[in-house]
Structures are given as C-alpha cells and as structure tokens.
C-alpha cells in the first residue's frame, strides 16, 4: 500500500538537482481554458518549488488560478482546460527518481494519483458518495489501487487513518455521509487522502465552510500529520491569517501569476510585493491597530482581458510607467525569496 515500499512502476526518469530538497517542482506552467470564442489564461508562466516535509501555502483570491494549479498537479483539469506548456516534476520522498507528470501514461497516472499525491477538496459535502458507507468508500479506493487488498487489511488501514484525525473508527466507518457534521466530513476527507500514505497532500480551501473552532482543530491535526509523518503539504487558501499560523512557506498568486514566494516570516515582515502588502493591510485582526487597514482599490482581474504589462498595475498604489508596459521579471533573493515587481531590483 505504501508508495515507497510497493515500488510504483514508472517508466521515464529525469535528473535534476532540485530533487535534493524539493518534493515537487513546477516549471513555467501555462494553463488555458479554451472556450468557443476566446480563451482564458488561468495560469501563466508559473515556477514553484515545494519543499519536502514542509507546509507550503498558496494565497490568492478568486481568479488567481490556485484551484487550477491543484488540478494541474494531478493532471485532471476539467474540460475545456488544457496545459499549454511547462513541466511538473515530482521528486518523491527519497529524491532518487523524478517523474514528469505530463508524460505519464494513463496507467502510470492512476498509480501516481493518490499514492504519490492526494487531494482534500473544498466543500467536503459533495466529495463523499451519499449512498455508500465510509468504509465502503475507503475499501473501494484501496481495492482499485491494489487488487489484492483484503477486507481485513483495508479495515485495519481505515482504522489507522481515522485515529490520526481523532475520529472513532468503530462508529464512523459504518456511517453514511449525511450523518456526519461538516467538521467530521472534512476529517474523513483528510483520512481518505492519507489512505495510501502519499508523499504530498494538496488541500484546496479545507476549512472555508467551517467555523473557527473546527478550523483551528483541523489545522492542528494537519500540522501534527506533517510533523509526525513527514508528509509535505500544499495548502490553498484566501485567508492569510491561516497561512501565518500554519505554513512554513507561502506563495502569493494574482491573476494566474506567482507574484511573491518565500519563507512565511520573511514574506509577512518584508511585504515586498504591493499586492502582498495590500492583502496584509486589508485583513482585520483581533488585536492589531485598526488605523492602517485599507482595502485594495479597483476591481478583481478580468481574466479575459488581462492588462498589459504587470497584471496588478491598475490596482497598485505604487504603479510606475514601466509597470504599464513591461512584465516585471522574476527577482530572486539570496534565500530563494521570489518577487515579481519592478520596484525590487535584483
């Protein structure tokens, strides 16, 4: 059942130096949604490294492209979306063998999904099958991946994962989806994603529909999983307070581009990109000063007609002439902190 032990069979491997500390490298990814009359560029030229054993968070609002990125990693972007160019490399937990997602065959993809990378979806209400018990769904997934799975082995594994998320296995496995509360359903989904012991878990807004106390509880569970089992995590959210509390690295996305990336403390302290600064200044908190808070002016980006030059320039308070005409280059810091802005010179 374990991806590392059962020896997932992949055919082609790559050599890269990034494999030492990263579990996944996304390189110059471009994703389009091709409609009849026009096409929308959901992700443009994004390069991102996910460090092994750490929690990386991606912050973005509507239209930033983070959900598309999650689907791209699993190579299941819904029609009419298509990956135009770029590569996604998965280095695995030992870093010895690297595979490229787009080049995987159907069979290899089926092994890759859920064993190497799994996902917890937004809104757990619709992700569970309403006519099957929880155990039936767990068993079905395990059987699909390994036909020789026996019912006892499946039951044992289900109990293991449910204990990790603090649910009582004897009671929960017999229940149906509608008998569970929102928080319990989300915990079942997290357990579901842990079934085959993946190396990377993607969490798409895992706590948006939940209340604050359940959110805190679930995020603490996720942190514990990360520390104890070494599972890397990619957390997609729009709430920067959650990011501040739980993520080790944070990336900020706007209109399909990664505009800032770095260590959480560094990003929050330096606030290099104006969008990051704007987001932090626009989030009220419980105790901090209320005086400096200001919303970001303008409207959300129109993905059909992206502005020329820097995508953020219509709303940027520090917009200069060069921002209106030229795309800002990627500027890297010594510590690997990435910023995409004309204000910051390398």
């Amino acid at each position, binding site marked *: 059942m374990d991806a590392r032990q059962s020896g997932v069979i992949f055919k082609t491997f790559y050599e890269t130096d990034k494999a030492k500390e990263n579990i996944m490298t996304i390189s110059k990814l471009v994703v389009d949604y091709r*409609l*009849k*009359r026009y096409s929308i560029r959901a992700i443009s030229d994004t390069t991102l490294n996910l460090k092994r054993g750490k929690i990386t968070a991606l912050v973005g609002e509507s239209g930033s492209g983070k959900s598309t990125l999650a689907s791209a990693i699993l190579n299941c972007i819904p029609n009419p979306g298509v990956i135009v160019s770029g590569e996604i490399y998965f280095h695995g937990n030992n870093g010895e063998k690297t595979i490229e997602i787009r080049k995987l065959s159907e069979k290899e993809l089926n092994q890759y999904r859920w064993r190497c990378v799994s996902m917890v979806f937004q809104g757990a209400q619709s992700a569970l099958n309403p006519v099957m018990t929880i155990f039936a769904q767990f068993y079905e997934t395990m059987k699909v991946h390994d036909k020789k799975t026996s019912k006892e082995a499946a039951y044992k594994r289900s109990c293991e994962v449910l204990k990790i998320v603090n649910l009582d296995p004897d009671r929960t496995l017999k229940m149906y989806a509608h008998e569970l509360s929102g928080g319990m359903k989300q915990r079942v989904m997290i357990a579901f994603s842990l079934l085959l012991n993946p190396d990377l878990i993607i969490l798409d807004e895992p706590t948006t529909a939940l209340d604050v106390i359940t959110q805190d509880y679930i995020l603490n569970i996720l942190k514990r999983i990360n520390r104890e089992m070494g599972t890397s995590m990619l957390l997609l959210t729009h709430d920067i307070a959650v990011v501040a509390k739980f993520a080790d690295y944070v990336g900020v996305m706007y209109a399909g581009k990664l505009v800032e990336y770095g260590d959480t403390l560094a990003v929050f302290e330096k606030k290099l990109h104006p969008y990051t600064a704007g987001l932090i200044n626009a989030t009220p908190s419980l105790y901090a000063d209320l005086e400096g808070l200001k919303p970001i*002016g303008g409207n959300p980006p129109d993905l059909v007609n992206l502005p020329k030059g820097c995508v953020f320039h219509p709303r940027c308070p520090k917009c200069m002439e060069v921002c209106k005409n030229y795309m800002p280059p990627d500027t890297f810091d010594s510590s690997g902190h990435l910023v995409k802005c004309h204000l910051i010179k390398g």
Partner: protein
Amino acid sequence: MSQQNRDIQQERIKQYLTEEKMFKRADRKEDYSLSRSIREISVKNVKKGFLAIFNMSTWGKAVQVIRKGGKAARKACTNAVKKWMVVLSLGRAATWKNLVIGLWKFIKMFFSNKKATAGTIIMLFFVLMALFGRLIIPYDPITDENNKYLPPSTEHLLGTDNLGRDVLGQLVYGSRDVLTIALLTSLITVFIGTSIGMLSGLAGGVIDNIIQIITNLFLSIPSFPVLLIFASFFTIEDPFSFAMVLSIWGWAGLSRAVRAQIVSLRERDFIQICKVMNLSKSHIIFKEMFPNIATYILINFIVIMRNAITGSVGIMMMGLADFQPSNWGAMLLRAKDTGAILIPEATYFLFAPIVAIMIFQMGAILLANGLDETLNPRLRED
C-alpha cells in the same frame, strides 16, 4: 475611491439627509433619453394593441385590423412587441440601444444553431402558406369524376383525390384552418395552464392541494379518448370551438411545470426581500416572478401547437368535426372512408396530409429546441 468620487458621495449623503428637492440639471436630458424605461408606454396603448391581436380569427384579418386602426394601433402593437421582448428577456434592457443589441445577439446566436434555423424556415413556410397560399395555388372544389386518382403532373402537382380535386390545392387551402386551430389551442391552453399553475404555486396550503389533486386527475386520464367524447358531445363548427375542445384536457402538464417553477421562485432571496420592502403582491407576481418563467412558457407554446395538430387531425379523422373537406384531417378521413389505402394510385392523396403534418411537427420541435438552447444559458455549449 478617488477623492473626486468621495466628494460626490459625501454630497449625495448630505442630500439624502436633508431631503433636498432634486435640482434639475440641464445636461441630464440625454441621459434620460438613453435610459428611459419601457414603462413610458401607457398601459392603455398596450391593451389596445393586444386586443387587436386577440380579436382576429385568422391572420389575414389581423393585418386589416391594424391597417384600419391607424397609426395608433400600429404603434401600440410595436410597443407591445417591444414590451414583450423585454418581458421575455430577449431584448434584455430598457433602452432602444440595448434592445437592438440584444435582439441582434439573439438572432446571431439563434441562427448559428442549424437545427433552429431549419425549424424556423419550416414554420415560416407553413405560416406563409396559410396566409398567402390561397392566392398562389387556387382550390377548385368542382368535382370531376373522370379525373380521379390522377398521378402528379404539371397541372396537379400532387395528383387528385377520389373526386378529381387537386390535392395540393386542398393542402394549401386547409393549412390556414389547421394553423389557426393550432395557434388558438396553444393560446388558450397556455393561458389556462399558466393561470392555474401560478394560482396553485402562490396560494399554497389547502388550495394548492386541491388543485394538484384535480391536475393529477386530468393527467392520469389519457387525453385523446376524452377529446373524442367531448368532440362528439359538442358540435365543432369553427376553429375557436375546436380549440376550446382541444385545450380542455391539455392544460394539466403545463400547470404542473409552472407550479414547480413558482414554488422554487417563492423561496428565492430576491422574492423574500420584496416582502421586506412591502411591495404589493401583484408587483411580486407580475414583475418579479413572471419574467423568470416567461421563456419556459414561450417554448411550451410551440410544443402545445404540435400536440394540437395531432389532436385535431385525430378528431377530424374520426369524423367528429363538421368541416370543409379541404382540411388535412378531413382529407385523411375521406381517404380512409373511400378505401384509398387499398388503391395504389391514391398514394399521393393518402400521404400528402400525413407528410405535411410530419414536416410541421418536425419544424415545431426544431424551433422549440432552438429557442430553448438559445435562451437557456445552461444549455449553451460556451
């Protein structure tokens, strides 16, 4: 917000507080003409225009009425059409400019759908045939025993019937009555079905339950046998009574669907807030709910026309309608009675009305589907 906008906002807030009378600004005139609502049309004119359409019994008379009514009636009709375009959200706005743009978008999308175009052409063909066909292909009721069951020739394009009359001429002559019956049935059925459905959906409670039981009754008893019974009781002499008979049983399905839509609309947020804002019930029904179901009703209109034709032809075939012999159903009746099925030369006589009905049905279905696809955003492939 920019400083200039902020100043405007503050000024407006002050006005709101002191309830200053609005000062008229001269430069506002062009803004008014651009954004004038269709409510400019007074209700009286709309009614006149509508009644003019309802009063006619054939399409030909309608044109005469409008011509006689003069400029006012014509303007009322165009205004009524405009208003209904908005109600059906085809025009999509309250200004001339937006109306034209919306109509053009609709036409472009509609006619890019090949099936819809085909459907429209077929229906248009039949409408024209009903209106003007008699001028092109005359109908000669004189019987000529010697010429019976002639094959198609240049003189008789579809041959002749058992009494030597031109088949094509009969087809064309009969199309007017057939279409009139279909149209009238549709109008009456839609009116009854919508009213009952809306009453049932809005009233709720006991009234809703009673009406639903009655509707169930009408739905579970098959309509055609009942129609035959009714037709044999009431004498059918003109298209109107024919339409009444056909619609007695047909309203049930539409009323059930309309009720479902109304019940779901009732709980929607924008209807709930009308209660908070103390808007009258008639406003809620006619101005908020009705435009949302108008598209559905229009499509049902066309579907019911289709069912009406089948029903009317069936009744006529059974000989229950005293009618002129040129009607399609009457043609089939005579074909059946005179044993045309057994006579090979009479094939054209027998099949002409059947094929005509088939083509009409197909046209109606294609048109209805095309309208549904264009107006219903969920079905579009975009």
